[in-house]
């Protein structure tokens, strides 16, 4: 009996100790359980919780925007089904379980734990959860290694017993990368890195930090901040995504202009593969030692092994930060300005250009203004831009800016950028607008849940494209979406919106939002997927890449051959063949 008690206790602690995040997060939507948008009894939108700048505020114009944009109505609710999905029973590999127990590494085969790690945040995944649909295949168990050596042990055991491992970091994938292949007959073990979340050391001489790969973005940033440093890597998902995940998907951060993308930030990677541990022997800032082996790991999407530890560049926390925004009369002018900024290589830490639809969207998220005075000032601003400057409210777009550095430099930099903007007809539009623009990216995923409560499905996707094709690509992809929706019987005009989120010397990253009211459709998710598929084809035909930072996963596998050539695919395959001949890391992403 004492043994039994012990086991039960372990299980309880498992849930409690090893997955505190799971407790405070939604199981069928985005983010924290306490934070969500809802329409209150007065019909006004509000954002619950205390975590965000918007939390606890009412957003008086959101409902109008929502109803007008989608033809939706707050009367037509489509709330989630409350009972959890039916979970198939685990297929355990007894020998593996026995061996694992001996190592003392915690694990669980509770349905809740398994389902939580069976998905990312693709529309179809969340939709299925809300509707209480059954997942065909979920992990059979979850393990929580505590350090690199634990991972080595787990991988060895997995190889020994032919168990399939799927690494799990923050669970924010939007490429079906976490989906278990339905055809997988072996026991699937989800390897949750969340306990490997320490900064192991910090080297101020070389400005690097050695960090365990399971750490979540916001924790990493907070811990470094305590020592006066930051990585500056801020992908929109940084509240929930993990360092290992960034490496495995070639993530990109909002402030890459100053700090670089993940591949620029990483100095050293340690990863455990079925063949053993792969790492470099030094931390030289650059080497000429054949093809960079880091690049086999970066973007491998969990098909080769688990990233356990990463040495990363760090920077002192900037002295001064300033948001800003510029209004342009037209999207074309905005793009031309961003192009010029990129040409002069004077991009601020972040510069983004939202199209007109997103500008209105952002406005719909303005909290209630308390004083008549603010009202008055807002009115004046609007009058100035639309009447005196002759900007068409249905054409104008806004660029949001974030400057970082020492105060003087920032102010100088700011002037330089605003001067360039002025030559393209841009008008400075204040810090507040800028900040709200960035806020949108953090709450957008919460808004999707709100949409889904009222028959609206939504998703985002991204690409990168040479400068000269930016405008055409945006235009054509939007048009294609509208057309495909029409052809597939979507009865309401879809929302298609885009923004240029990153600038490079030779091109830009473009991020699309796409949403529609699905009332009257038998299978909205299927329709959605068909349209997204068409949109991706359009992107590729217009010179866009398969992905700028989301990755390929299983969602975009079909285009890999066209994207990187047969030989390219062959190269990747042969690496996989050497590193993992038994396909232990069997999530079947990428290839």
């Amino acid at each position: 009996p004492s043994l039994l008690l012990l086991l039960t206790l372990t299980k309880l602690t498992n849930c409690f100790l090893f997955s505190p995040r799971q407790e405070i997060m939604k199981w069928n939507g985005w983010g924290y359980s306490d934070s969500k948008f809802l329409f209150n009894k007065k019909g006004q939108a509000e954002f619950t919780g205390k975590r965000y700048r918007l939390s606890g505020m009412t957003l008086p114009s959101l409902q109008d925007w929502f109803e007008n944009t989608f033809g939706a109505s707050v009367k037509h609710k489509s709330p989630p089904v409350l009972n959890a999905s039916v979970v198939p029973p685990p297929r355990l590999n007894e020998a593996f379980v026995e061996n694992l127990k001996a190592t003392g590494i915690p694990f669980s085969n509770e349905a809740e734990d398994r389902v939580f790690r069976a998905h990312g945040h693709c529309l179809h995944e969340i939709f299925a959860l809300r509707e209480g649909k059954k997942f065909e295949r979920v992990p059979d168990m979850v393990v929580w290694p505590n350090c690199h050596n634990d991972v080595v042990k787990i991988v060895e055991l997995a190889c020994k017993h032919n168990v399939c491992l799927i690494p799990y970091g923050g669970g924010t994938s939007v490429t079906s990368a976490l989906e278990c292949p339905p055809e997988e007959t072996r026991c699937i073990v989800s390897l949750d890195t969340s306990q490997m979340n320490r900064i192991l050391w910090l080297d101020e001489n070389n400005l690097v930090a050695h960090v365990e790969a399971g750490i979540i973005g916001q924790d990493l940033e907070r811990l470094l901040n305590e020592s006066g440093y930051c990585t500056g890597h801020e992908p929109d998902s940084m509240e929930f995504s993990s360092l290992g995940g960034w490496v495995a998907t070639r993530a990109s951060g909002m402030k890459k202009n100053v700090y670089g993308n993940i591949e620029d930030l990483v100095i050293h990677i340690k990863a455990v593969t079925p063949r053993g541990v792969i790492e470099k022997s030094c931390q030289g800032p650059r080497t000429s030692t054949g093809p960079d082996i880091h690049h086999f790991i970066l973007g491998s999407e969990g098909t080769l092994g688990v990233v356990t530890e990463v040495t990363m560049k760090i920077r002192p926390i900037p002295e001064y930060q300033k948001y800003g925004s510029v209004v342009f009369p037209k999207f074309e002018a905005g793009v031309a300005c961003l192009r010029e900024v990129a040409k002069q290589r004077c991009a601020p830490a972040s510069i983004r250009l939202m199209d007109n639809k997103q500008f209105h969207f952002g406005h719909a998220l303005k909290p209630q203004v308390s004083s008549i005075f603010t009202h008055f000032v807002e009115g004046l601003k609007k009058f100035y831009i639309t009447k005196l400057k002759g900007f068409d409210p249905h054409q104008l777009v806004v660029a949001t800016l974030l400057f970082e550095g020492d105060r003087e430099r920032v102010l100088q930099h700011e002037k330089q950028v605003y001067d360039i903007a002025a030559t393209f007809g841009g008008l400075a539009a204040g810090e507040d607008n800028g900040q709200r623009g960035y806020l949108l990216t953090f709450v957008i995923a919460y808004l999707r849940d709100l949409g889904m409560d009222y028959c609206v499905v939504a998703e985002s996707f991204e690409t990168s494209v040479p400068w000269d094709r930016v405008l055409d690509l945006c235009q054509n992809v939007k048009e294609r979406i509208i057309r495909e929706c029409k052809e597939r019987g979507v009865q309401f005009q879809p929302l298609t919106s885009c923004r240029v989120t990153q600038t490079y010397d030779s091109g830009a990253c473009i991020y699309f939002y796409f949403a529609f009211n699905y009332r009257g459709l038998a299978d909205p998710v299927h329709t959605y997927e068909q349209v997204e598929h068409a949109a991706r084809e359009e992107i590729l035909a217009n010179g866009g890449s398969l992905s700028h930072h989301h990755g390929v996963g299983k969602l975009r596998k079909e285009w890999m051959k066209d994207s990187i050539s047969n030989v390219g695919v062959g190269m990747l395959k042969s690496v996989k063949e050497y590193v993992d001949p038994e396909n232990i890391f069997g999530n079947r992403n990428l290839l």
Partner: protein
Amino acid sequence: RELSSESNIYIYCLNILVFVTLQQRDPMLKRDCFEDILEERRNSSDLKYALRCYAPVLYKGVTPCKANMLKNIVLQSDQLHYVINQVSQESGEAPDIIQEEASVILEEMAHRLQISTVRCFAFALSKAFKTLFQHVCVNEEGIQRLQQAIQEHPVVLLPSHRSYMDFLLMSYILYTYDLALPVIAAGMDFMGMKFVGEMLRMSGAFFIRRSFGGDKLYWAVFSEYVKTMLRNGFAPIEFFLEGTRSRTCKSLTPKLGLLNIVIEPFFKGEVFDVNLVPVSISYERILEESLYARELLGVPKPKESTSGLLKARRILSEDYGSIHVYFGQPVSVRSLAQGKVNRSTYNLFPRHIPRKPMEETQSFVNDTAYRIVRLQEDNMVLKPWVLMASLLLQNLEGLELSVLTEQTVWLRGLALSYAAFLDWPDQAPTAKVVSSSLALHRGLACVSGDRVSLVVGEPLGPVTPEEALFNRAVSVLSCASYRNQVLHVFLRPAMLAVAMLHLSDEVYNCFSFLWDMFSNDFILCPGDTVQDFEEACYLLVKTGAVQMPQQDIVMTDIGQPTLSFFNGLLEPFLQGYQVVCRYLCEEASEGLTEKQYIPAVRSFAVKLILAGNLRCYEVLSSDMQKNALAALLRMDAVRKVKVADQVTLIVNKMAVNSIDDILGKNRMISHINQTPISPSLSLVAVAEDLYRDGLTPSYIR
């Protein structure tokens, strides 16, 4: 007759396939109704009409672009700059000078569309049209579709080209319906007419040189000019796929240059789609009728001059019947290219650097061009006279009026069951229809007593035999230009009929030979041989002329008149090609140059006719001679060799002889088809059946 083994396979799937392919080719089985736009002009003030408010909606609501601004956009484009630098490097001239040259080219080319000029034209044309024509009919549904298309996508208008009138008429119609006025690609020859040239320029014409093959700069300016207008949707672009007016009223093999230019922005992702709108303009009587015939006979075309145009005032006193303008369904380039062209192949090359289109693209554009011309053909309105002309040409000695009437009725049934777009006056008795057609075309046919025959130009004083022959040829060729209008309806079954009646046992092979031989004379989409064969079989079976028991194609008891009519229809072409072959084998000298070829064949044919060995006048047409030569070149029976400045034709007599043999089996040159068609009573009954069927909507074409 046995079919070749390969064709057997096709026959099995015939019933299913043909149904599908025919439907694919023409998704719009139902055609729109027409409205006469002259009717309102006859009832209200032309001045008011010319001055009325004109506010067309443009593509995505863009504001129209001033001609000067347009020029600036073109001159400042990356595309042009690239070529200017390239040319400058090659020639050693400074870029500024080349830039200046480009600016001059553009000046010479660009349109200067002015609404005031358009209004002048609107006024003048209203007056002219009312005197010249009884009706100008337009399908308003087509106009509505066009209006929609203009707002959604850049539009390219592709009218058929039979007359100088065409582009004035197009602009006139678009103005009438308050649609965006097109900019029109016109040949530089118009510029010769000083005042008129400028007037046309101000009504939206832009002028291109007839040939500028090697001139990079010219090409760059030209293509960028067109693309700029297209990409921005400033105005619909209009040009003639056939490149020039068809002197024979047959559609001409499409030219691809401009089509390539307007399609490329889609492939490069610069526009979401491009809509091609085929427009079929059918004239009941063509203004240039006898002018064309003379031109084909070697009388050079009068140089366009303003005074020449004024002389043409004489034509104002005549009745030219009606015009039908049919705006076809807009064809989306995007949908056409789906699965045929991989646009991402354009990703790896800067878009502003000119590049020869890839093979995949070229064949797509070629295919598209043919499809559009066939769509034009499909919607050409045919008048009863067209049928009568076809019959008269098979009976050059003339026909009894009653026989002509009877046979016209029979042919009408056949044409309708083949989905010809026949404009037969409802409710009018047949005799009336025939007589009014004869009245309108009294310049071509005359009724003396009970006999109808072709008119031979009134001899003024004593004529030489050559002059008499020439006069007769003019009326035959004029008449042929009407018969030619119906050829696209009958062509495929007619080729099958010829294959069955005259040629060897392998019907499919013969068909395919004819198909290949005639592919310069008629619009036969490259690679469609099998499909056309199936269509031919299907149509002949449908009208009961042949049966297809298992693997055979057999003429039925009632099939004789149909097949022999078809045979007679193509006879002039067969004979013409044969004469060319004979000439090349028997008469052509060693160093025959390309320039000498046409006059030489002509005098060879004249000799044969005068000697009474040939009664086919159509071979005198330079058009047929050119097409025959093109066919022989294509079949490698003749080669072109460039010696010094001359292009010499090298004849492979063996090959030409064997082609002549195939064409001429069972036929001697002196033997003209004289199988008279004498429909028996039962035949008339069949014809009536067909006619009725032709009218029922359940009938697939």
